């Protein structure tokens, strides 16, 4: 029985790759071929869909917008979470347990509940349709996650490191930047990965808070589907391109994936 153990992950991976294959397949077909007949691979291979996306500002602008707010959010979330995680890991203070718990409950907040209030809030402060608005909005669930992950990694670093540095004369700032951060570099990588991931994939809030200037690629895709009919090939190409940042990120952190999911506290 163990001889066929490899079959299980293999079948699962095939299952995972099939829809992706289908999408890629469709992105290289013309819409006529897609709607006309059923073929397992593109009979008339075409790059037209991709060409259109990469030359049309309304399309590639969407990707750029998404990347901008995702990167912004990752930076903000991690930067804010670092000192907070340090505080949770090293200090006791009034209300610390409750604060930590409250932070985690925000991870459980359904975006649907916040869609309309966010719309009103960000409009009221004049940030509607900006990248920074989406970046800050995503902090709602990304910051607690970053704090949780970083706190786990930091707790794995013995306090003696801090104390030695202080005895050696480091100020808190210098210690933090020059000694502590390199020590938890893996943790920062993991936290950044998850922030990137959850911000890149979250679309309800991103769409609600934007209209033209900061429109994410998702909005462009849904608009296309409704206004110009079913341009499936184009949609497929657009969708395929959205998988690239994800694939790149995974490739770079592939050695840390298993360790990262352990989150230091599992």
């Amino acid at each position, binding site marked *: 029985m163990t001889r066929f153990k490899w079959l299980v992950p293999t079948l699962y991976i095939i299952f995972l790759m099939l829809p992706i294959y289908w999408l890629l397949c469709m992105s290289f077909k013309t819409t006529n071929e897609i709607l006309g007949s059923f073929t397992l691979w593109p009979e008339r291979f075409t790059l037209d869909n991709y060409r259109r996306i990469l030359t049309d500002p309304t399309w590639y602008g969407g990707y750029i917008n998404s990347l901008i707010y995702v990167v912004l959010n990752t930076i903000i979330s991690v930067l*804010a*979470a670092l000192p907070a995680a340090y505080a949770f890991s090293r200090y006791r203070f009034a209300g610390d347990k409750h604060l930590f718990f409250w932070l985690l409950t925000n*991870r459980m907040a359904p*975006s*649907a*509940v916040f869609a309309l209030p966010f719309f009103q809030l960000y409009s009221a402060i004049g940030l509607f349709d900006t990248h920074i608005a989406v970046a800050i909005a995503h902090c709602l669930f990304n910051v607690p996650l970053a704090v949780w992950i970083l706190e786990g990694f930091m707790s794995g670093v013995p306090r003696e490191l801090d104390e030695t540095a202080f005895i050696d004369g480091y100020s808190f700032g210098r210690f933090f930047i020059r000694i502590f951060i390199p020590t938890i570099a893996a943790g920062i990588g993991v936290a950044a990965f998850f922030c990137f991931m959850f911000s890149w994939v979250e679309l309800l809030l991103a769409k609600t808070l934007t209209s033209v200037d900061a429109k994410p690629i998702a909005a462009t*895709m849904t608009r296309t589907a409704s206004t110009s009919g079913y341009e499936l090939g184009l949609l497929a190409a657009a969708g395929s391109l959205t998988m690239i940042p994800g694939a790149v990120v995974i490739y770079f952190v592939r050695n840390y994936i298993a360790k990262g999911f352990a989150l230091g506290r599992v």
Partner: protein
Amino acid sequence: MKTENPKAWFLVLPVVVLVAFNAVIPLMAVVNYSVQETFGNNEFFFEGVKWFREVMTSQRFRDALSRQIFFTSIILLIEIPLGVIIALAMPHRGWGVSVCLVLMAMPLLIPWNVVGAIWNIFALPDIGLLGHSLNKLGWDYNYTRQPIAAWFTLVAMDVWHWTSLVVLLCYAALTAIPDAYYQAARIDGASRWAVFRRIQLPKMKRVLIIAVLLRFMDSFMIYTEAVVLTGGGPGNATTLLSIDLVKIALGQFDLGPAAAMSLIYFLIILLLSWIFYAVMTRDELE
């Protein structure tokens, strides 16, 4: 050993500001709306718990809630055991490890609307690989028209999307088990089942709790993929809670009932999560 330090609040301040801004202010607005009625013209009248009562007695809400509970239950029943089985079968060494991890992580990093779009196309009865094949094999399958087919596709999509999370979590726990445990089991003559039950499962327990909690919460909140896939249909066959809420809030601008429903929704999630968590960690404290 943590030291007492009230100045730690300064370190925590940025996080508190960011999250509170996003959480507290909107929530206050929601609470505000939930207890008021408006007839337009920015006039609001305090109505107390009228909206709450209305939502909780509305058939529409109850239907959405039961659909949601049904969905989440199926999801948990499939994804958790499946994730465990796959994690158990994954290699621990060699080139296969990276390949497995990278490929399995892919669905997790696809924007949720693209996930919905992929499955929308994939399951189309005439031009989608899945839909076409199922019909070729003799089943009458059309998820845009048949509620059962729609449910099947919705569940399949979520399993495709999120099982890898369970797999990766369980795999991390499994690889942390030192070889000596397996070696001792071989020497003790333990059967494969005993190895699973006595060594692997206990070591995976903490991770499984996290996995169940995460999957429970996220499946209860599911929105984008489901909307892109079925739009809540056919009819309202797959209208889950989030979908219904957004329809009401953004569509009909019935702020009062929408707000009340939001709060009830949020509270349900919090309550069930807390129960789950308490039940599962209970015997760890023992």
